[in-house]
C-alpha cells in the first residue's frame, strides 16, 4: 500500500520536473541568439515574426510565420532556424512524428544542433522509447556542458536520470541524479528540491531507506527556504510518509499537519489571491475612471491646442494675404507710374503739336488778314491785276490752312480710334485724278508738270478716305518741295502679284539721309520743326505712315538732295474673283 503511495508520489513529482527542464531552456542564451539573428535579418519580416511568437510561446502563429518564411526561399541558416521553430512548436502541440520530421530536416552543421538532439531525445522520451531518448540526450551532453548553463545541465541530467529510472536501471539513474549540478547548485531553486525528491524516490524504490530519508530530509530542509507552498506540502508529505513507514507516528502526524497547513495556506493563498484579484479589479476600475478623467482632460487640451493651431494658421494666412496684397499694390503703383510717364510723354507731344499747329494757323490767318487788308486797299485803287494775284494768294493760304486742319482732324480721330475704316476695291487711277483735281490751281501756279501714268486696270483694296488723305499729303509735299517748272509723276510698278507699288516722283529739293530716317522713325513724336519756312509740322507724314500701316501697306523713301524724291508705297491689290 505504502509503496503504491510512493509510486504515485514519485510520478507526481517526475512530470513537473520534465516540464521544468524544458521551460527553462527558452529564456537564456539561445533566445538571445535568435533575437540577434532576427535583428540581423531585418528584411525578413516573417522570420522576425516567427521568432517573436516563438519567444512568446504562441506556437500556432510561430508555425504559420515560419512556414511563410520557408516558402519565401531565404538562406540556409534562416531555414534551419525555421525548421527548428516548427519542430519545437509541433513538439509543444504534441505532434511528435511531425516534429521529428522537422528536426530531421535540420543540417548537422546548424550551430545549435545539440538542441535538436536534445529535443529529439524529448520526443523519444514522450513516446516512451527511453533507450533512444538516452542516446540523443548523451549526444547533446558535451555541447550542453560546454555552455555551462546550470539549469540546462540540470534539465539534461534529470531527463537522462528519468529515462534510466523508467528502464529500471537504478544505478545509472542514481549516477545522473547524483550529479552535482542537480544536488548542490549555487542557487537553491525549485528544481533542486525536485531533484532531491527524485533521488529520494529512487532510493526509496530500491528500499535503500537510509539514503532515501537523507534526501527527503534534504528536500524538506531546502523547501523551507522557498515560497512554493505546493513543493513545501509535497516535501512535508513525503516526510510524513517516511515517518509513517518508520512507524514514528508522532512525527508523521506532525509532518502531515505541516503538509495540511501548507495545503491550507495554499488555499488561503488562493483566497488571498482572489481578494487581491478583486482588489486589483477594483484598482483597475479606479484607474479606468482616472483614465477617463484624463482622457476628458486630454480632449480638452486637444481642442485647446487645435484652437491655437487654427488661430496660428489663420494669422499666417492673413499675414501672407497682406504681404501678397502689398506686393500687388507695389506692382500696381509701378505700372501706374510707368503709365503716367508714358502719358506725360504723350501729353508733351500733344502740347508740342498744339503749339506748332496753333502757330501755323495763327500765321496763316494772320497772312490772310493782312492780305485782305491789302485787298481792300487795292480794290480802292482798282488795280485789277494785283487784285487777281492777291485772291490767288489768299486761296493758297486758305487751302494750306484747310489741309492742315483736315490733317489735324484725321489725326485726332485716328488717335481716339473714332475714324471709320472700311476697305473696298478702289480704282487707283481715278482716285489720283480726283486728288489732282483739287491741286490743279496750285500746279498751274507753280507751272509744274503733273503726270498720272498709273495703269487704269489697277484696283487696290484699301479704305478710300484714308487713301485720299495719304495721296493728298504726298502730292502736297511733292508740290511744296518742287521748284517752279518741276514735274510730279505718279506711276506704278508691278513687283508682286498681290501688291501694287505706287511711286510718287518729284524732282524737287530732295532730302538727306537723316531727314528720311527721321520721317520714317516709328513712334508718335513729331519731327522737330526746322528753321526752314517750308517744312511743316510733320503731322501729314505721321498721318500718312499710320494710314498706310492701317491699310496693310508700306512706305519707303528714296531721295537725293536737289535731285528729287521718290515716295514708294505698296498696297494690297483687290483679289480678282477668277
Amino acid at each position, binding site marked *: 500500500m505504502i509503496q503504491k503511495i510512493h509510486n504515485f508520489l514519485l510520478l507526481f513529482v517526475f512530470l513537473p520536473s520534465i516540464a521544468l527542464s524544458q521551460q527553462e531552456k527558452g529564456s537564456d542564451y539561445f533566445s538571445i541568439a535568435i533575437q540577434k539573428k532576427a535583428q540581423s535579418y531585418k528584411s525578413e519580416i516573417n522570420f522576425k515574426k516567427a521568432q517573436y511568437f516563438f519567444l512568446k510561446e504562441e506556437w500556432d502563429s510561430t508555425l504559420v510565420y515560419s512556414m511563410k518564411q520557408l516558402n519565401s526561399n531565404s538562406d540556409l541558416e534562416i531555414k534551419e532556424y525555421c525548421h527548428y521553430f516548427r519542430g519545437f512548436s509541433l513538439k509543444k502541440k504534441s505532434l511528435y512524428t511531425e516534429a521529428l520530421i522537422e528536426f530531421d530536416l535540420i543540417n548537422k552543421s546548424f550551430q545549435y544542433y545539440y538542441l535538436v538532439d536534445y529535443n529529439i531525445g524529448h520526443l523519444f522520451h514522450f513516446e516512451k522509447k527511453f533507450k533512444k531518448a538516452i542516446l540523443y540526450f548523451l549526444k547533446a551532453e558535451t555541447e550542453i556542458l560546454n555552455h555551462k548553463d546550470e539549469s540546462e545541465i540540470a534539465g539534461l541530467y534529470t531527463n537522462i536520470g528519468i529515462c534510466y529510472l523508467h528502464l529500471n536501471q537504478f544505478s545509472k539513474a542514481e549516477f545522473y541524479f547524483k550529479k552535482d549540478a542537480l544536488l548542490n547548485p549555487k542557487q537553491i531553486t525549485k528544481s533542486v528540491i525536485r531533484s532531491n525528491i527524485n533521488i529520494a524516490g529512487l532510493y526509496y524504490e530500491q528500499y535503500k531507506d537510509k539514503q532515501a530519508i537523507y534526501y527527503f530530509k534534504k528536500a524538506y530542509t531546502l523547501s523551507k527556504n522557498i515560497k512554493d507552498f505546493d513543493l513545501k506540502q509535497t516535501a512535508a508529505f513525503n516526510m510524513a510518509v517516511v515517518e509513517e513507514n518508520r512507524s514514528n507516528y508522532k512525527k508523521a502526524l506532525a509532518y502531515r499537519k505541516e503538509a495540511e497547513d501548507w495545503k491550507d495556506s495554499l488555499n488561503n493563498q488562493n483566497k488571498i489571491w482572489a481578494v487581491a484579484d478583486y482588489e486589483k479589479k477594483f484598482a483597475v476600475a479606479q484607474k479606468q475612471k482616472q483614465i477617463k478623467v484624463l482622457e476628458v482632460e486630454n480632449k480638452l487640451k486637444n481642442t485647446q491646442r487645435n484652437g491655437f493651431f487654427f488661430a496660428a494658421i489663420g494669422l499666417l494666412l492673413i499675414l501672407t494675404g497682406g504681404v501678397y496684397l502689398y506686393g500687388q499694390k507695389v506692382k500696381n503703383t509701378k505700372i501706374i507710374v510707368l503709365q503716367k510717364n508714358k502719358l506725360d510723354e504723350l501729353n508733351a507731344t500733344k502740347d508740342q503739336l498744339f503749339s506748332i499747329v496753333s502757330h501755323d494757323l495763327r500765321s496763316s490767318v494772320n497772312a490772310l488778314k493782312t492780305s485782305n487788308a491789302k485787298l481792300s486797299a487795292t480794290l480802292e485803287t482798282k488795280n485789277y491785276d494785283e487784285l487777281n494775284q492777291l485772291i490767288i494768294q489768299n486761296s493758297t493760304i486758305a487751302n494750306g490752312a484747310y489741309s492742315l486742319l483736315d490733317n489735324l482732324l484725321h489725326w485726332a480721330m485716328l488717335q481716339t480710334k*473714332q*475714324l*471709320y475704316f*472700311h476697305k473696298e476695291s478702289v*480704282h487707283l487711277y*481715278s482716285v489720283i485724278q480726283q486728288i489732282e483735281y*483739287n491741286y490743279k490751281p496750285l500746279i498751274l501756279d507753280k507751272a509744274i508738270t503733273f503726270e498720272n501714268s498709273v495703269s487704269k486696270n489697277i484696283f487696290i483694296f484699301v479704305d478710300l478716305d484714308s487713301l485720299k488723305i495719304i495721296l493728298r499729303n504726298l502730292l502736297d509735299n511733292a508740290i511744296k518741295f518742287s521748284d517752279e517748272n518741276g514735274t510730279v509723276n505718279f506711276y506704278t510698278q508691278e513687283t508682286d502679284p498681290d501688291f501694287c507699288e505706287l511711286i510718287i516722283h518729284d524732282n524737287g529739293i530732295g532730302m538727306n539721309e537723316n531727314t528720311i530716317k527721321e520721317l520714317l522713325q516709328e513712334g508718335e513724336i513729331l519731327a522737330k520743326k526746322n528753321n526752314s519756312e517750308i517744312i511743316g509740322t510733320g503731322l501729314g507724314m505721321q498721318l500718312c505712315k499710320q494710314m498706310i500701316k492701317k491699310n496693310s501697306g508700306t512706305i519707303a523713301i528714296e531721295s537725293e538732295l536737289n535731285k528729287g524724291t521718290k515716295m514708294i508705297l505698296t498696297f494690297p491689290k483687290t483679289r480678282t474673283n477668277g
Partner: protein
Amino acid sequence: MDNINVLIIEDTPEQSDALIKVLTENNYTVTGVATNFADALKLFYESTVEIIIIDVFLDGKPDGITFAETINIIPNSSKPFVFLTSSQDRQIFERAKLTKPFSFLMKPFNELEILYAIEMAVEKFYAQTNVFMSEEQDTVISNDYLFIKKKNSLKKVALNEILYIEVEERYCNIITEKEKFVIQISLTKISNLLDKNKFVKTHRNTIVNTDKIEEIILADNLIILKGDHKINLSDTYKDFLKKMNILS
C-alpha cells in the same frame, strides 16, 4: 441713250446748287431736290429715279440714313444711292453701313469725286464691280437698263428698246429702234446678265430680243425684227423656238 435721273436729298441750298451744276454739266438729269425726309419720299415715289444722292444729316438729324433704310425695306423699289457726309463719325457710319450696298462721299468733294461715287454706287448696287473704271468693260446691266459709261458720265438704255445685239470680240453693237451704238462687254458676261427668256442667242454672235420678233422664216433661217431688221438664225440655236408660243 438717255440721261440718268438723279434725285438729290440735301438741305443746304449751296451744296445742292453745286451738285446740280456738276451733274447737269456731266449730262445727268436732276429730277428734284428734297430738303427733308417727307419730301424725299414723295419725290422718290412720284418720279422716275435711277440714282439718289443723300446727305446723311438733314436739319441736324440723320434722316438721310432713315430714308435709305425706308427704301431698302421694299423689295425692287430700292435704287443705287450715295451718302454725303461731312463727319467721319464712327457711329453714323456703323448705322449707314447696314443700308447695303453702301457708298459714301466725304464733304467737301470735287467734281471727279462725285462722278466716281455715283459710278461706284451703280456698280455696287448691281453687284458688278470694277466695270466703269476698267478698260475691258463699260456697261452695267440691270433688269431694266444698260448703264453705259460715256466719257465722264453714265447713260442708260432701256432693255425693252433693244432689238438685237451683235457681238464682235470684246465689243457689242446694240441696235435699238432709234439708234445703234457700241458698248464694251464680253459675250459671256452679257448673255449671263440678260434675261434668258427674253434675250436669246440666234446665232454664234447675235442675241435677239424675242419681244421684237415679227416673223420667223424657217426655210431661209431668217428672223425679221421690228423695223425690218433681218437676222440670221443658225441651226444650233433653234431650240429657243420650242419655248415660244407660236401662232399659225
